[in-house]
């Protein structure tokens, strides 16, 4: 079964990936306003999309998708995004979703659609970048520059809502993405290894340590392996980043919409 694939649905709003959908979808959702379709779409959305986008579609690990129509997206474009996913992001393709099921999801989402909220426009991205470089760059990477211990943030502005970014920075969100679970390994002799877990089975664990060394360890050779239930990212309270600086930092993060690594000769 494909629970993992179905569960990880994120970041499907901003970029429409290169379409591999065989036939062009209808321009307009044929199920819009159909009460039965909306009911089916609600179940489908909750089972397949809500883990990342939230039960209210306002975004958790994935972005807020209640304003997609207000931001200018069209039915057929959204259909293609659901069907094909977005390459290079957490938003997977849904090859086993039938056409009518995709439309049912969109019919339900339309009932949650909100008008475009006036963008607060608060904050200064330029200053935000400085705050980012002072506090975040050691662990996070943007456009090929920075640390690797935490997730790459090159398209974080497209993948997370303002509210979720704020919560995460302030320490209000628990948990971590797969591959970033903090762990402490205590060997039989020598110093403990602190890092994030990249993989694990019953007998071994693969870790990136705080010096970004990737290495595998045989569990039988360890005295102890301790999983830390809290994220490796420390909370940045208002004593560390003021409200005004937080606005600036988020403003900067919102400008990060994707990294193009291609080299133009």
């Amino acid at each position, binding site marked *: *079964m494909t*629970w993992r694939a*179905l*569960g990880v649905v994120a970041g499907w709003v901003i970029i429409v990936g290169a379409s591999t959908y065989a036939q062009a979808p209808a321009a307009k959702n044929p199920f819009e306003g159909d009460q*039965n379709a909306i*009911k*089916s779409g*609600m*179940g*489908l959305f*909750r*089972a*397949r999309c*809500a*883990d990342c986008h939230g039960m209210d579609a306002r975004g958790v690990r994935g972005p807020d998708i209640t304003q997609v129509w207000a931001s200018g997206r069209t039915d057929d474009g959204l259909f293609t995004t659901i069907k094909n996913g977005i390459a290079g992001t957490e938003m997977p393709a849904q090859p*086993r979703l*039938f056409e009518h099921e995709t439309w049912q999801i969109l019919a339900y989402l339309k009932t949650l659609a909100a008008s475009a909220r006036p963008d607060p426009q608060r904050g200064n991205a330029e200053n935000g970048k400085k705050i980012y470089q002072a506090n975040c760059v050691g662990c996070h990477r943007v456009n090929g520059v920075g640390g690797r211990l935490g997730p790459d943030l090159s398209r974080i502005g497209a993948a997370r809502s303002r509210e979720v970014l704020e919560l995460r920075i302030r320490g209000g969100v628990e948990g971590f993405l797969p591959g970033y679970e903090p762990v402490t390994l205590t060997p039989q002799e020598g110093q403990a290894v602190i890092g994030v877990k990249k993989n*694990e*089975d*019953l*007998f071994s664990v693969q870790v990136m340590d705080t010096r970004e060394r990737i290495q595998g360890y045989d569990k039988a050779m360890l005295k102890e392996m301790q999983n830390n239930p809290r994220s490796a990212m420390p909370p940045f309270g208002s004593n560390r980043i003021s409200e005004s600086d937080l606005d600036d930092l988020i403003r900067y993060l919102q400008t990060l919409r994707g990294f193009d690594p291609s080299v133009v000769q």
Partner: protein
Amino acid sequence: MRARLLCLVVIGSSAILAAQQAPPALVTPQEIAEGLPKDGSRWITFGGSYTNQRHSPLTQITPANVKGLVPQWTFQTGTLGNFETTPLVRDNILYVTGPQNVAWALDARTGRQIWRYRRELPNDLTACCGLVNRGFAMLGDKLFMVTLDAHLLALDMRTGAIVWDATLEQYKNGYASTIAPIVVKDKVIVGAAGGEFGIRGFIDAYEAQTGKRAWRFYTIPGPGEPGNDTWAGDSWKTGGASVWVTGAYDPDLNLLYYGIGNPGPDYHSESRLGDNLYAASLVAVDADTGKLRWHYQFTPHDVHDWDSTEVPVLADLTIAGQPRKVVMFANRNGFYYTLDRTNGRIILAKPFVQTTWAREIGRDGRPVLEAGHTPDENGEITCPDITGGTNFWPPTFDPSTRTFFVNAREACMTFYSWKPDYKAGERFTGGAGQRYKSATMPVYGALRAIDPTTGERKWEFKYLNPSTSGLLTTASGLIFSGDNDGNVLALDSRKGTLLWRYQMGANLHGTSAITYMVDGRQHVLVPAGTTLTAWALPQ
């Protein structure tokens, strides 16, 4: 010097030839009924024997020496998709089905291909859950394999050429087939998959010689037949009840035992009010006529996609001082059952994983339900999850210690449902699920040893993640398993102690290792991902 060497070679070869008398050219029903022979020369039916015990009499590899296993060869399929097959072996040749209806005959000494068969498949298949196949059956000079477009093929064992091709049903109407057939006397027994596509399931028997259908047992009774009234309105027509996992056979009672799939639509209760017979049941069917002898429904009116397509295992046990002919069954719904296989009556039933939907199985054999476990658009949390407490991966039974072994899953899920519309050939489930995890509902797996006379657990070996591996036991006290992280494992079957492991890089999924002798050496064959690897002790 040369002459002496030549002499040694000749003597050596004769010794090998003498030890390995060629078996009769044609596979007989008697040979199949004998199950796994003590000389380890064959494994020629899905579960090793009709009992599905998957318990080998071989003792060369033991708990003391299993650490010394070394790979003999690895075979790569070169196709997309993973193995879920039980390979068969006879006269030092392996017969293996793979994904996408590719199949091979391989030299068991070297893993080298002798022939390869590939079916041209249509591109609009409806198989719900992977383009897989679970194995061959054999009789005479023929092999039998079902296909994803719902056919049954007979292949020439020596060349892989098609001998006959029988259509089970039209794949465009949602039918598929993935089951390993079994041969009983002169018939090939198969079933239809498609429980998520609104099919009407069945078990079929075909004449092995000609491919002509001998009988069909519909797993959903038609109008006027007993049980049809357990489906509201016309819901029986699209009720699923598929058959995609191989059953057992008792030659003395001449009964076939098959687990039946979920009712459809999977999650939407109101679409099919009633008990929905014989979905989520075990049926006992006369092997000559296909007539139903008895049934036991594990999950009346299932709404969680809990197919009862787990592997039934037969044994003769003494329970409360009485000799009993039993069928053992660890069900996807989270309960372990020991049933009387002469009449389908329940002897005992106990949960073997966390179950929240039913308090217990009552004296009348029906589950005593807990409230609040019918899915709707808002979701309800139930344990086990959709995949279940276990599933189609084969369990095993060691008769010497009277122990039933199963790879169990601890997992819960938020189930959702909504009313679906039926359209031929399209998915018809009416719901979906989202994995749910909490401090009281953790997700992990465990190999569990169960006493089938009491339902009590003897021991368990925990996995980080739920395993989908089948099991193999040997008379030397070993159990072979796999975890969900690519490791193949050997444990002491009496204590559950881990003795050997190897990282295969892919999971042993939906099937088990098998074991047999080649040139006096016991081999353990592991299908994992796109590879088959044979292991043996050093020479």
